[in-house]
């Protein structure tokens, strides 16, 4: 209905293969970006930016990372939290040694370290598939967690065992540390996330992304088409972990400001996994939808009882949140195993074929 595609024809393969071939999608995305880059910084409260938007964006990025590995390359991972941790600690060490280098560059570079960790722990994927592989990623999770505790060098031998984000500036504006305002941090994060989402989209639609999906859909056939399984899987691990690492660095430097091992524990791995499941495996849009859903839902659950004058303990709402998210996961798997992104896609298809129930040609 909203989609009126008559008259949109492609005269080149470049246009036909564009990320958003439909005009209405391009308009929609432009509006969203306009709101994100201009509307929110101008109008939203610090609470909204600091507690809703920033975490949402950080988790979206982590979810993109996991989704690349799990949704696109078909390799289930339960080690997202740890890979995020590698990024965060790497960034911390880098800025300790190179305090003068722009922190944004360091954040982007810190992902390289988690990519390396990803490749290392992705090695077993050549021989191990599916659930078995998921369990080996637990090894990464627990081993790295242990490293974050035991290797004091990582947190500069602080007594607290935690890393404290120093203040770093860009053009004399504080972008990390206590003096950085939420709006500034938000603008940095949204720029990074937008850029990296675009990069992910580009890679996924090209030769490399296709090789991942080939491995995911039918690894034997992929190999018989000339795909080297090891190379494809490891590149997926590396690329995915890079995203998780950058997300981890952003999380610490742009959001919570300090971190210890609990920030990267197995629960975070699961949290990101839930985002990917509910958002939709194999969909970039799904990463954002899933992150919004899983992050915003608890905020709403916390807010609702207050609104209706009910006074619940913080712990109670947390338990309720767990139950609701658990039920929703099951519900989604039953109703639409492909998540919110598929729901949107189905809805969009409805709008495209409106008033017909399906495309009849």
């Amino acid at each position: 209905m909203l989609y009126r595609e008559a008259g949109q024809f492609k005269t080149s393969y470049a246009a036909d293969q564009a990320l958003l071939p439909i005009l209405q999608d391009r308009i929609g995305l432009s509006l969203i970006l306009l709101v994100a880059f201009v509307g929110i910084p101008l109008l939203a409260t610090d609470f909204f930016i600091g507690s809703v938007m920033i975490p949402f964006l950080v988790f979206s990025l982590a979810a993109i990372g996991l989704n690349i590995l799990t949704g696109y390359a078909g390799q289930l991972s339960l080690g997202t939290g740890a890979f995020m941790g590698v990024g965060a600690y790497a960034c911390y060490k880098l800025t300790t040694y190179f305090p003068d280098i722009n922190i944004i560059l360091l954040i982007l570079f810190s992902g390289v370290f988690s990519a390396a960790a990803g490749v290392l722990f992705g090695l077993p994927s050549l021989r191990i598939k599916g659930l078995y592989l998921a369990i080996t990623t637990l090894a990464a999770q627990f081993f790295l967690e242990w490293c974050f505790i035991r290797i004091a060098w990582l947190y500069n031998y602080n007594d607290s065992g935690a890393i404290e984000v120093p203040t770093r500036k860009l053009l004399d504006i504080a972008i990390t540390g206590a003096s950085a305002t939420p709006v500034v941090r938000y603008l940095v994060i949204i720029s990074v996330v937008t850029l990296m989402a675009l990069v992910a989209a580009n890679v996924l639609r090209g030769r490399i992304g296709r090789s991942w999906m080939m491995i995911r859909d039918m690894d034997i056939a992929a190999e018989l088409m000339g795909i080297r399984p090891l190379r494809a899987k490891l590149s997926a691990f590396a690329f995915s972990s890079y995203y998780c690492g950058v997300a981890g660095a952003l999380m610490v430097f742009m959001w919570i400001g300090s971190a210890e091992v609990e920030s990267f524990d197995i629960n975070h791995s699961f949290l990101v996994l839930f985002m990917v499941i509910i958002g939709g495996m194999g969909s970039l849009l799904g990463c954002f939808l899933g992150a919004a859903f899983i992050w915003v839902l608890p905020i709403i659950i916390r807010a609702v009882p207050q609104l209706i004058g009910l006074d619940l303990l913080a712990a109670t709402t947390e338990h309720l949140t767990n139950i609701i998210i658990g039920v929703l996961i099951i519900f989604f798997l039953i109703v639409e195993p492909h998540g919110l992104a598929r729901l949107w896609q189905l809805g969009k298809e409805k709008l495209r074929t409106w008033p017909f129930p399906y495309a009849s040609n």
Partner: protein
Amino acid sequence: MDILHSIFVAPFIDMGAYPDFLLQVIWEGFVAGVLYSLIALGFVLIYKASGVFNFAQGIMVVFAALVLVSLHEMGMPAWVAVLVSVVVMGLLAIGVERFVLRKLVNQHDAILLMATIGLTLVLKGSGQLIFGGEPKPMITRELGLPTGASDWEVFGGVVIFQHIDIAATVVALLMVLALAVFFSKTRIGRALRAVADDHQAALSVGISLHQIWAIVWFAAGIVALVTGIMWGARSEVSFALEIIALKALAVLILGGFTSIPGAIVGGLVIGIGEKLFEVYWGALFGSGVEAWFAYVLALIFLLFRPQGLFGERIIERV
């Protein structure tokens, strides 16, 4: 050279020097291994019969133990509380079959796994909501479980055996035997075995798949309850167990997803292995290696034998 010495020589010298201590460490590891095996057993039961990788087995242990303890707190006599807990686990099994599994028939494995992760969250949330998140002591004495310890003088030293550990081992053994009898001697047990091989075969025995699923989940629930009691008696009933229960996944890798003997052997290997590693090699790494030893062992193991200890070699077909 020092490093090689401290890895390959020194620990063994230590072992030889204090064999009583070694024995004590092995016993501690053995008991932990028994509990890993029990959790793994729950996984295997469900996986064998329904192909579902039940991630919620760990939380089921906590949940069952919490139900028991809380019922007793509410004033129920211990053994009545056990019976009621059994009923609760039965209801849970029926509920899971009815509202989750039945709706996800023929779905991909990964989706079923995800569903049990969802179930984990529900059980965790509702457990904490109803019973509170605080750790609770197990009603060991009320259940007539032994406490105290016996000393065994050997190798010129003393090895201490906690009675509850001995009891746990015995109970685990009994349960494995009971399961073995159940599977080989009863009609339902045979049907369960059949269903693991071939769904059609099970139908010909006259039991519906729905019933079978409910039964295995119930059986896994009982295993969880027993595990919970034993574990609780050794330490306490708390949600921290959930993370430890993940080690059962490593056990499964060693033992294979479908093998009950595998689960037992795997559990013991990991239990004993991680204790030995922690005690004799842990200092090299800085302690706390127990947290990851099981997984790394599983990972290394997988690289050489992806089919598990007792699994058959897989031939891929095109």
